[in-house]
Every structure is written in C-alpha cells, then in structure tokens.
C-alpha cells in the first residue's frame, strides 16, 4: 500500500501551484516565495497521508478527499445563525469574525486597544516583524498538510500584542465556515505575544448547516516571547459537513507560560488537531488540556507533541475523551525530551469513556527521552461509568439520565475546572449536558 492517498484533488492542487497560484504569489516578498516553493516540493513528495503513515494510522482521510472540492471561495455568505452558535453567554470580550479563513471587516479595529495589532495576513506580508516569525518552526518535509498549507494558503489573521501589554478582556475569534458547494479552504494565522505580554484568546469554530462539504486545512502559529503568558482556548462546535485539520505550532521563549484548552464537540465529521509545542528556551511552562466528546459518526483525532529542547522546562497534559454512538476517538501524545533538556518535568494523562457499543478509541501516549535527569510519566485509561457510582446517585433520588450526565461532567471536571474564564466554563458544561442526555438511548448498556 502506498503512503499517499490517490485523489484527483492532489493533481488539482499541484496544477494550481504552477498556474493560478504562481501569478497570485508573484508580488509576495522573496522569503515567502522561497518558503512556498520549498513547501510545494514537500507536498509534491508527500501528498495526502494514507493510513500507512504512522501519524495517520488511525485517521483515514481518504473518504473525506473524494468530493469534488472547489478551491475558490470568494462568493461565500455568512449566515446570521451560524454566528449565533458561537456566542458565549455573558462573556465580555473583543470579537473578531472570520469567514472561511478571511477576516471580516466588522469594525474590529475600533474596539481594540492600541497595543494589540490585528490585520489580515495579506496586508502584513511585507513587514519585517512578520518575516521574523513566519514559518520558523514547522518541519514541512514531515507534515503533509502543513506543507500544503504553506504552499498555497490564501489568507488569515496576524495578531501582535506589544511588549508588557495586558489585554483586559479575552479576544474571541469566531471562525465561521460557509459554502453552497463543496469547498477546500486553507487559512493561515499567526499570533505573537511579545515580551511580557499577556493574552486570553478564545477561538470558536462554527459552520453553517448546508449540505455542502467543507475541507479546512488550517495552520496557526503562536509565538510566546520571554515572560509572556498566553491562554489559548479552542472550541470546535461545527456542523456535520465540516472536515477540519487544524495544525497549531507554538514556540515558547524563556519564562513564558502557554496554556492550551481544546474542546472538540459534535458534530463535525472529521476533527484532527495537531498541537505542537516547541520549548525553545529554559524555564518555560506549558499546560495542555483537552476534552473531546464525539458523537454520531465523528472522527476526533488529537495529536499533541511536546518538544522539550532545553533544560528546566515543565509540561503538563490532560486529555479526556467521551465517545458516544459511532464515534471514533484518537489520541496520540508525544513527549520528546532532547539530550540537553535535563531537569525536565513532563506529565501526560489520557482518560477515555466509551459509552456506546459502536464507539472506538485508539490511544497512543508516547515518550521519547534522551536525557537522564528527568521526571516523565504518562498514563492512559479506557473504561466506562462505574455501576456503583450510578447506583449510588440513583439511590439518592437522581434519575438515571441525570446521574449519567452528572458523572460525565465529573469526568470532564479535571479539564473544565482549569478554564480560567468562568463564563466559558459554564458554557462548556452546558454543552456537555446538552450532548449527554441527547444520547441517552445509546449510552444505556
């Protein structure tokens, strides 16, 4: 079996490298053009990964590539109720809306304080600040879809928070996806928290309920400079037609703290999150929290990569999964400790609840360690709700349905309690409570 998926889309994309894209990219600065050429070569070699590629062993994207995707998405229209789906009740925040990966001009600039600069990537390309940070960490020859994104991304946002600035309210970025025909989009984003800055970002991914299928190959880079502190929340609540590959490449400098919270919820057909954290200096701290709740025929795949390059860094990772109906969950957490990364302290935990006879979970925690003075551990469990606990709750007059929802909420608590924004925590718990009773029939064993 080949390591590539054979799909007409591959050729279609290659044709664009030489055709339409080449003209559009003519005006781009030299560093970007070079990066694109290199990425094109990588993608030409790699293609779309088949399940023979280790990182895609459990996630077969071939069925999602069969559609006749259009690569042109200028005519999309945003529906009001799509945007409503992303509203977090009671949350005071700055808001940014994107449609199919493109910033919408809805007056976001006026509301923002002066120390945070946001503009479309297309406008930022020429800046020295952009060049300094763009595409520095990603190994294009290894990551199929990151290479494809770099080769042919169209637009996205570029956010910079000035040194020592502290954003008073969370920045809520709403990624909306909408199409009237099958569509392939590739957004590209870059967030930089300069020295000593602190920032809370909430990214919501929502889509409209059209019959059209959308394949989104998104790539975000986050740079956390010295002493900066970034809390990064990702909420994926898109509709069934969305297939999302989301790659986030984070680079952390000395004494910085980065926390990522990823919530993958129904109903997008395919959710694949690649979260790479590169610890480029000593004394950094990283926290990764994840909750995936898969229902229907969802395939939810979380790949995390903690790259401990230097000494005295700490990382902590907790991912919890709840699988309902015919859902498949995949977790792959890799902790890589380089030889120079002495005194590393790395912890990883993955717990899964299988609540339906047809659900599947594939978990692969992975440690690769080349330094001896380290403390690294990981744990992974797969199980069900405890019958004793259910009985206990029922014996105290709580209905079976509520008892189950309560136990799932409790299971998720290790992750949800870490959320630092109260309104968001309430919102997530509401979503859990919404999906669990809705699937009662399937849960009953």
């Amino acid at each position, binding site marked *: 079996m080949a390591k590539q998926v054979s799909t007409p889309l591959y050729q279609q994309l290659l044709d664009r490298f030489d055709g339409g894209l080449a003209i559009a990219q003519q005006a781009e600065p030299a560093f970007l053009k070079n990066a694109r050429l290199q990425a094109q070569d990588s993608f030409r070699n790699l293609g779309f990964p088949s399940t023979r590629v280790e990182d895609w062993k459990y996630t077969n994207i071939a069925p999602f590539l069969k559609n006749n995707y259009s690569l042109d998405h200028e005519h999309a229209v945003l529906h009001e109720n799509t945007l409503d789906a992303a509203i977090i009740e009671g949350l005071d925040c700055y808001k940014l809306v994107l449609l199919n990966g493109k910033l919408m001009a809805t007056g976001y600039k006026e509301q923002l304080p002066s120390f945070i600069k946001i503009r479309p990537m297309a406008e930022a390309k020429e800046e020295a600040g952009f060049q300094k940070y763009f595409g520095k960490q990603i190994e294009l020859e290894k990551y199929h879809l990151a290479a494809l994104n770099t080769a042919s991304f169209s637009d996205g946002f570029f956010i910079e928070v000035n040194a020592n600035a502290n954003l008073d309210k969370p920045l809520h970025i709403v990624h909306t996806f909408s199409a009237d025909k099958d569509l392939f989009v590739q957004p590209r984003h870059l967030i930089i928290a300069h020295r000593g800055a602190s920032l809370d970002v909430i990214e919501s991914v929502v889509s409209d309920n059209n019959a059209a299928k959308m394949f989104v190959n998104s790539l975000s880079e986050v740079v956390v400079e010295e002493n900066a502190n970034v809390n990064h929340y990702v909420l994926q609540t898109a509709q069934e037609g969305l297939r999302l590959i989301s790659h986030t490449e984070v680079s952390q400098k000395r004494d910085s703290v980065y926390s990522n919270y990823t919530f993958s919820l129904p109903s997008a057909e395919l959710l694949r999150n690649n979260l790479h954290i590169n610890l480029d200096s000593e004394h950094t701290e990283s926290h990764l929290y994840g909750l995936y709740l898969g229902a229907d025929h969802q395939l939810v795949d979380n790949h995390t990569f903690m790259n401990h390059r230097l000494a005295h860094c700490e990382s902590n990772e907790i991912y919890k999964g709840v699988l309902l109906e015919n859902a498949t969950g995949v977790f792959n957490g890799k902790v890589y400790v380089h030889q120079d990364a002495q005194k590393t302290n790395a912890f990883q935990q993955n717990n899964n609840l299988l609540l339906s006879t047809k659900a599947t979970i594939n978990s*692969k925690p992975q440690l690769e360690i080349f*330094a001896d003075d380290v403390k690294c551990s990981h744990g992974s469990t797969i199980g069900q709700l405890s019958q004793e606990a259910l009985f206990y709750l029922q014996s105290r007059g709580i209905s079976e349905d509520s008892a189950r929802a309560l136990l799932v909420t409790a299971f998720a608590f290790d992750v949800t309690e870490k959320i630092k924004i109260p309104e968001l925590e309430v919102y997530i718990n509401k979503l859990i409570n919404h999906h669990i009773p809705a699937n009662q029939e399937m849960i009953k064993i």
Partner: protein
Amino acid sequence: MAKTIDSNEIINDFATREYEHGFVTDIEMDIAPAGLSEEIVRFISEKKDEPEWLLEWRLRGYKAFLKDKLPEWQNFELPPMDFQGISYYAAPKNKKKYNSLDEVDPELLATFEKLGIPLNEQKVLAGVAVDAVFDSISVATTYKEKLKELGIIFCSIGEAVQEHPELVQKYLGSVVPHSDNIFAALNTAVFSDGSFVYIPKGVRCPMELSTYFRINTQGTGQFERTLIIADEGSYVSYLEGCTAPMRDENQLHAAVVELIALDNAEIKYSTVQNWYPGDKNGKGGIYNFVTKRGACRGVNSKISWTQVETGSAITWKYPSVILQGDNSTGEFYSVAVTGNKQIADTGTKMYHLGRNTKSRIISKGISAGYSNNSYRGLVHVGAKADNARNFTQCDSLLIGDKCGAHTFPYIETKNNTAMVEHEATTSKIGEDQIFYLNQRGIDSEKAVALIINGYAKEVLNQLPMEFAVEAQKLLSITLEGSVG
C-alpha cells in the same frame, strides 16, 4: 529406539552427530554455499528428509520473503542486511575452537566465574572440546525417561516432523503464518531446527523444560523454530537461553516461537537472552530479530511470557498473545537492559478477542551508556471481547545522559465494556537512594546493582528459582562500569 539408552551411547551420539538424519560426511557438503534461492530451500528440506507438505510450506515462506520489504517503522537504524551473504545450511557439529580453557578470553572466564558456572559447563559454553563425561547429559537422560512416561513429547522439530507429522502439520505456522513478516518468512523458508513440545491432555509437566537439557540442541541455530502445544488441561513451563554469555559467528538471528494453549491449559515461557552485544563501539554484536507469539485457543487458557534481555547488539521482538478463548489470560513480564551502543526495541501485543479476557504487561527498561531502549506495545480489544481487562506498566530507568528510553504504547478499543489502563514513567536512579546505601558502607556500584534488582524484582520474581538467582547476577554484571 526401543532399548534403553545409556549415557555412553548418548555421548557417542553427541560426538558423532554430524551423521544424524542422513547428513553427508562429505566436508564440502556440510555447509551450503552462501546465498538464498529456491534450490537452497529444496536442498535444506531434502537434507532433513522432510515430507512434501513441509517443503511446500518452506517455499511459500520463501516467496513471501521475496515479496516483503524490510520494515521502516522501528526506532533505530536497521543495519544493511546481506541476505545473500549468509549460508543457510550447516550440518550441526561440535564446535571445537580451543583445546583448553587457558586459550579462552580471560574476560569471558571472569564473567563465568561471577555467574558461578561449573567448570565443565564453562568449557562447553566457551567452545572448548569436552571429552570427559558431561554432567548435564546424564541428567538430561533421566529427565527424558520421566517425560516419556507421562507421554510428553520433547524433541527437536526435525525429529517431530519424522515421528509426529500429524501434530506438526496441524500446528506449525498456525500462530505465526509464513508471511507474517520478513524475518518470519525467512525463518519459514530456511529454519534449521528447534524445539518441539507437546503436553498431552491433563498432564502437568513435572519439571521446567529447557533447551539446555535437550541434548541435540548444542549450538543453537541461527533460524530456530520452536513449537509448544499444551493440550486441554495441561501445564508446562519452558526455559529458553541461559545466563552465560553466548558467542556465535552468525550475526543475524531470526527465530520463530509459536505457543498454543488449548482449553484450560497454561504455558509459561521464560527467556534469558545474553547474546554477544558487540564491543564498546557496538561492533560485531548479534542481531536478535525474533517473532514470538502465543495463541490462547481454548477457554480459561493462559500464556505467560517472561524475558530478561541483556545481550545482543540489537534486540527486536514482541512476544504476543492472541486471547481467542473466553476467560483466557495473557501475561508479559520483561526486563531489558542495554549498555554501550546496544539497542532494544521490544514489547508485546495483546489481542483480546474472546470474552472476559485478561492481560497484564509489566515492562522494565534500563538504559546505560549510549544505548537506546524502547518499549513498543499494543493492546487491542476487539468488538466482541466483552469485559476485557488490561493493565500495563512500563517503567524506564536511565543511567547516564547519553542514552535514551522510549515508549510507544498503542491502545485500540472497540468494545465499551473494556477496562484498559496504561502507565509509564521515566526517571533516573535517585541520588538519595545511592547516598543512603553509600552511607551504610555499600559502594556505588553495588548500590546500583541493588537498586536495579529491586526495580526489576516484579519481573525476576516470575522466573523459575535458579534462573532468577542467575538473572539477578546477570543484571549487575551487565551494568558494571556504567556508574560513576
């Protein structure tokens, strides 16, 4: 052979084994020319006087071998393999490399000394010509008699093919198919010999069976094949290898071990592997690429693998259990120690297919020097495996900052009644622990040996008693000089 065998005859037999099974005496014919081809496969089969079905099976293995590519997923650089540079047939003979112990490498002798190996055995292991009575052979004879009484068949595969073809034909290749992987395919095509064990219904084998006691396995082959069948309600404990360092001029070792446990049967398979690991730069060591797999075919059956891996330049094996029968149990206990430039990529696979199946995995890795030690395991729970239960623990210990420890556990669950737990830790030997022992007058080297033995105890406890004592010494010796 109806008449009783006395020990003299056996020694005679031993000394003249070159003539067994119609081996030709012609010196030139003793070793087949290097290279692998269909003719060689036919030649081996003919030499061993094998039936037609076995030859056909070998040829199928050969075809699978031609089709297969070398794997690329392992966590180390696979050295280039010249499959055409190996001679695939050599009539087994007594290797007489030295005339007396004085000629043997003193370092090797020192190791024997530490392990407490009797002088006669030292000679055999080092390859010194033995002409006197050899203790273990007479021991072996008494054992053989006893086994025969119980109806236990314990002989070489070659013998079994001649005498019990129906059993061999039924079970050979039923757990590890001829096309399983490239090394298993190669083994199928050219396997030299190996052990065959059959325990009849309801029999509990009264002693530990060991290759060591099987007279005609002197000089373990490069492509060994082991087949163990435990019929309903039987029990057997089998030991492979020995703690003494084994030197061998063949670099590639690709053995296949198949275990079959029927209803209510139990097989316990213990390995102590101490092949030559190469010199300090990792040059010249053995590549130990073994396919080991057991099938719990019957209800309530149990297969348990215990391994202590200290030798070989590269150890690459995953003893696995297929839990087909309801209520069956699989166990895997492993200690892998690597030093210098050694590489170990080992672990297990547990396939839960039947109902109420249980498995337990305890893996302890210790890396020192420039070595790399990986645990790679799979726990698979099939859709029909209701109430499957697994517990996995894999710990790694690092000694020195140039070595690596890795874990690659795969957990696949398709059943919502499964309970699967996995945990892994990596750390170094605590300085406080060493200090504590130093303080009580124990030097650092001994302290490390003590700590390592404590660390590996869970696994060592699974070994049969004498083996466990030797394995403990072995661990300390392997890590000698890696501290301080």
